[in-house]
């Protein structure tokens, strides 16, 4: 039976990996991901999990090792953050192209420079085009559940794509929360053993990672993209079944008090909980505001998102990454692109907040909403706005 216990969120992530009975973990230390692989190294060392724990010499090799492992037919996991994710960048594209169901947790952290170990989304937003399925967790329970969901989706024969579960570094990864940990029998009901159709086997030789000449490259890219787009059906089905089994139902986007909302805040990750507190406060004051947050980021859940924001006149999109020299932050960019062709589309204002570990407070959200109301009447001069900047 599931037990509800106080647990650090990083440990909950690795407990999910343990319960998934992974075969190989590639591990390289990087803050704030470290607690995840540290705990996994302990459960392997204690014999609680029979897996290969490969302490590689870099994140580049971590992802390379995962590809070699997954190609051999093993259930494969790694975790990283920030510079480590950036170092993997080159290899990240190759896993989905080879249709390898690797699961990775990214404890989101700012990118250098200046060097910062604290949380924002600049690491993962630099990896928009890698063709991995990506989810964002809001709290520890979601982290645990989304890791199990990730294996289930990745290894589905209709999907066979790698999955990233994003969680905010420190502000979520290092927090102790009450989390309901499923037991092995419950996990086994949800997650069948991984049985690859194709793997590296001398009895049945295959070549993987061949040269894509111009006559085939476009078609190969199209096939990967279609697989990613079509994965959404399995993502939804796997969430439905998770809910039916364990009572926690998840959606690609979640709405909070959006009924009759004139302004809707758009967030991702753990700041959504602070945003909800801000919404409660503003609603008490009679302000018509609500919140929509993404749980599924890639493939972009356009229909669900459009449905969630229907009726709102104004969207206040909070980005936790800067797109230097660009028209707006990466989340706002995606939303604007998705809404451009819609009739009667809402106005979209973009706010960059919480870079490099800067707190995003209830007051910040109130400021953002208040600005959005103002801009709805009087168009702002700038394309986007940075919140909480200390001017000297």
């Amino acid at each position, binding site marked *: 039976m599931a037990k509800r216990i106080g647990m650090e969120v990083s440990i909950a992530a690795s407990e999910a990996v343990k319960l998934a009975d992974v075969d190989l973990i590639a591990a390289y230390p990087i803050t704030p991901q470290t607690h995840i692989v540290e705990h996994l190294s302990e459960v392997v060392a204690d014999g609680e999990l029979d897996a*290969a724990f490969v302490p590689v010499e*870099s994140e580049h090799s971590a992802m390379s090792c995962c590809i070699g492992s997954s190609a051999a037919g093993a259930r494969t996991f790694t975790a990283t953050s920030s510079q480590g994710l950036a170092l993997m960048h080159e290899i990240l594209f190759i896993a989905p192209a080879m249709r390898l169901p690797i699961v990775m947790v990214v404890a989101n952290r700012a990118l250098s420079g200046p060097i910062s170990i604290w949380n924002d989304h600049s690491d993962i937003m630099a990896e928009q085009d890698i063709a991995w399925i990506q989810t964002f967790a809001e709290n520890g329970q979601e982290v645990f559940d989304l890791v199990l969901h990730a294996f289930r989706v990745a290894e589905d024969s209709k999907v066979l794509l790698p999955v990233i579960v994003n969680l905010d570094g420190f502000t979520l990864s290092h927090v102790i929360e009450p989390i309901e940990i499923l037991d092995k029998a419950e996990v086994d009901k949800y997650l069948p053993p991984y049985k690859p159709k194709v793997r590296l086997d001398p009895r049945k030789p295959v070549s993987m990672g061949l040269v894509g000449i111009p006559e085939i490259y476009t078609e190969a890219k199209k096939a990967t993209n279609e697989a990613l787009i079509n994965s959404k059906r399995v993502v939804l089905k796997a969430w439905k079944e998770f809910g039916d089994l364990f009572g926690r139902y998840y959606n690609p986007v979640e709405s909070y008090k959006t009924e009759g909302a004139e302004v809707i805040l758009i967030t991702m990750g753990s700041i959504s909980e602070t945003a909800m507190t801000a919404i409660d406060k503003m609603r008490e004051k009679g302000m018509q505001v609500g919140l929509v947050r993404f749980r599924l980021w890639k493939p972009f859940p356009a229909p669900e998102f459009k449905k969630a924001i229907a009726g709102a006149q104004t969207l206040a999109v909070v980005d936790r990454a800067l797109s230097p020299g660009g028209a707006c932050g990466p989340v706002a960019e995606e939303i604007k692109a998705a809404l451009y062709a819609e009739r009667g589309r809402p106005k979209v204002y973009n706010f960059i907040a919480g870079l490099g570990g800067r707190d995003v407070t209830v007051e910040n959200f109130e400021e953002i909403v208040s600005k959005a109301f103002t801009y709805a009447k009087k168009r702002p001069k700038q394309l986007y706005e940075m919140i909480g900047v200390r001017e000297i």
Partner: protein
Amino acid sequence: MIKELENFKGFSAKKLPLADPLASGHRACQGCGEVLALKLAMKAIGMNSIVVSATGCMEIITSTFPQTAWNVPWLHVAFENAAAVASGTEAALKVLMRKGKIPQKHIDIVAIGGDGATADIGLQSLSGAMERGHDFVYICLDNEAYMNTGVQRSSSTPYGAMTTTSPPGKKSFGQATKKKNVPAIAVAHNIPYVATASPAYFLDLMNKAKKAALVKGPAYLHIYSSCPTGWRHGGDLAIEISKLAVETNVFPLYEVIEGKYIINRKITKPKPVAEYLKKQGRFRHLTDDLIAQIQRQVDEEYDKLLKLAGETA
């Protein structure tokens, strides 16, 4: 002596394995010494293997979709990570066998890379994999430059050689640094087996490839791989030049078994290095002084090797 090598008798010219993990029908240049070396090495290692290839000539010429020249499972990921990918495959197979998910049977994991993939960009991942002790064979096919991208210098390009990024000019005589000694780097990792080989001595090469596969733990094989295109020599000269490289002590053949150096073909009366250099366009610009300097370097390096092997000239 390593236990696994005790019963290995060696290949004979009359009794070579019939099966070819690397089939003919690949797209290598005419007279390529590298593909010949790879074919021989894989013939020796055999069909019960999985090959992980770095980006390079051998990857390009054997894997143009929808064709493949590989009769064994083959995986290519990127330029610098063949050893890291092979680590994952090796560790995964071990755990899958332990858990009973696949049948218990030894499979040889072979990672291959050119000199760029080995001595330069992939040195870190190779070092990591050797240090972690994965049971795999790493084969460096050394054609002494980045041939796949059009003959640019690598850290394995020999002193004085002309490449497109080490061109001779008014202020240059070609490659200005000495060839990086990757076998010595491998030896420094305390791995059980390191060897050099040449396709001109094909039984020696095949025996070494098989021994590398037989030993438990990491094995490193550095194979001389002549390149008619990059070295500017005739397509019929790969073997002749490969042989000269050994006879002049430019590329000595040796093994390092558990740290112990053994010179397999001791050259007591080496031919002058000039004989080797003059057959190749890449050394055409060298003056007599430079040739004499290269001769001194070769002699010094060979002396060092003799000392390591506890031998005298």
